[in-house]
């Protein structure tokens, strides 16, 4: 007997990515650099978040050509982004045989009320979250993996830290709560009760949770790992820096050895220029990508 694309197989791929780094790439050449540097997966994009931010306008699913070029160039899993609520973009990605779909706030949302019903797809989904309510709603919709939203394309880790701390604190509140409190917590966090019950049973989030949005240095990656993330997405931080291959490798080593300051100082040497950062305070509310999603 053989059944494809079960929930266990979808969540299982996320388990295999744990402790690793997933890198944004825009073509085959970058994908190969990422694979060689030790990425566990790549995210195929037409433009990286920093450029999406700079260009403005509507950001959509990347062209099928770019995605296929990346899929054909590497042996590691390839992810691609669909707009929030745009289930047809997700259907197209699924039919391409993509390994993971990111329903992402980095693209312009296509639906202001609904996220995609992720149960109906062969490929697993990863979704962004700023707190436990958002994370559990996405899990109830069928997400097999969660990531912090952070603030993509800024090279500023502060929002990712905020989101991870929020998720952890709210998670601890659920784990520690008396069984009579769980319904009230479900209302407080707007979190589906069945997912909260699952959390209480397992004493953890039922899916893998990665850091994303603003990670630019090996120290940023190690910080997010020490805060309890299972792995790291690096978007603009690598290919907007002075020496992408070197930086990519350093972030991979730092993510594995996140608890060893000696190793962290060694890999942080001679890395060249990091990407230029943006202070979150200078962004208007409309410019904050993390506000997208419901």
């Amino acid at each position, binding site marked *: *007997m*053989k*059944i*494809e*694309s*079960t929930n*266990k*197989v979808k969540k*299982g*791929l996320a*388990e*295999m*990515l*744990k*402790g*690793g*780094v997933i890198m944004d790439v825009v073509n085959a050449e970058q994908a190969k650099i990422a*694979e*060689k*540097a*030790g*990425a*566990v*997966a790549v995210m195929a994009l037409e433009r990286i978040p920093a450029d999406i931010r700079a260009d403005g306008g509507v950001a959509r699913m990347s062209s099928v050509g770019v995605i296929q070029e990346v*899929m054909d160039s590497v*042996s*590691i*899993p390839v992810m691609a982004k669909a707009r929030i609520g745009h289930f047809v973009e997700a259907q197209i990605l*699924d039919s391409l*045989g*993509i*390994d*993971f779909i990111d329903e992402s706030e980095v693209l312009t949302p296509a639906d202001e009320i609904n996220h995609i019903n992720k149960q109906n797809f*062969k*490929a*697993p989904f990863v979704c962004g979250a700023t707190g436990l309510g958002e994370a559990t709603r996405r899990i109830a919709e069928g997400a097999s993996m969660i990531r912090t939203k952070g603030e993509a394309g800024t090279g500023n880790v502060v929002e990712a830290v905020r989101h991870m701390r929020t998720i952890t604190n709210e998670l601890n509140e659920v784990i520690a709560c008396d069984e009579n409190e769980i319904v009230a917590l479900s209302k407080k966090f707007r979190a589906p009760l069945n997912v909260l019950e699952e959390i209480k049973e397992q004493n953890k989030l039922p899916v893998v949770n990665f850091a994303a949005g603003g990670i630019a240095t090996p120290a940023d990656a190690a910080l997010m790992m020490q805060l309890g993330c299972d*792995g790291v997405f690096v978007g603009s931080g690598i290919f907007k820096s002075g020496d992408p291959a070197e930086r990519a*490798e350093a972030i*991979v*080593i730092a*993510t*594995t*050895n996140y608890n*060893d300051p000696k*190793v962290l100082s060694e*890999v942080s040497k001679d890395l060249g220029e990091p990407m230029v950062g943006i202070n979150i305070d200078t962004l208007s509310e409309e410019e904050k990508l993390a506000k997208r999603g419901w």
Partner: protein
Amino acid sequence: MKVGILSFQGSFLDHSKSILELGHESLLIKQSKDLTSVDALILPGGESTAMKKINQFSNLLTDIDQLIKDGIPTLTTCAGTILLAKEVIGGEVTIPNIDIEVTRNAYGRQTESFEGSVKFFENEDIYCFIRAPKISKIFSDTVNVIAQHNDEVVGVVQKNVVSLTFHPELNNDEYYLNWLNDFIREGKNVRSF
């Protein structure tokens, strides 16, 4: 008993959970200095290309290679099996310790990943195959088949090494845990060489 689990990346925490459930001590090994007095080793699933790269920093796999050659009971799953294979199609040979050829991502991409029935020694159960490799050739009579999915070989033993292409650590069923316990305690099924 102390079980060292290669923890560069991948499902090392799932294996650690199995070891703790059995009442053994689990050591997450990232650098050579972590590798002190272990009684058994596990090389988990993940991405073999990433593990190989992370290894370049500390060269931990050279020490692991020596321990395996010394005869320590070693279990590998999925990417771990690729690291120990003598020949690799679609990837690189790393520390060859088992006389098999494996083909990476042999079933296809994630959309072809599946749960399938596996006969593992005397027991039949359903296990996950995630972008799994296939054991495409066996080069030696001393390699014995211990697990099959339909007609495919999905698990072998040679001397002290047991190599699987599926993920028993995501199930932790009673049969697997009992087998694992024997394997760690006595090197049973493996020390017969």
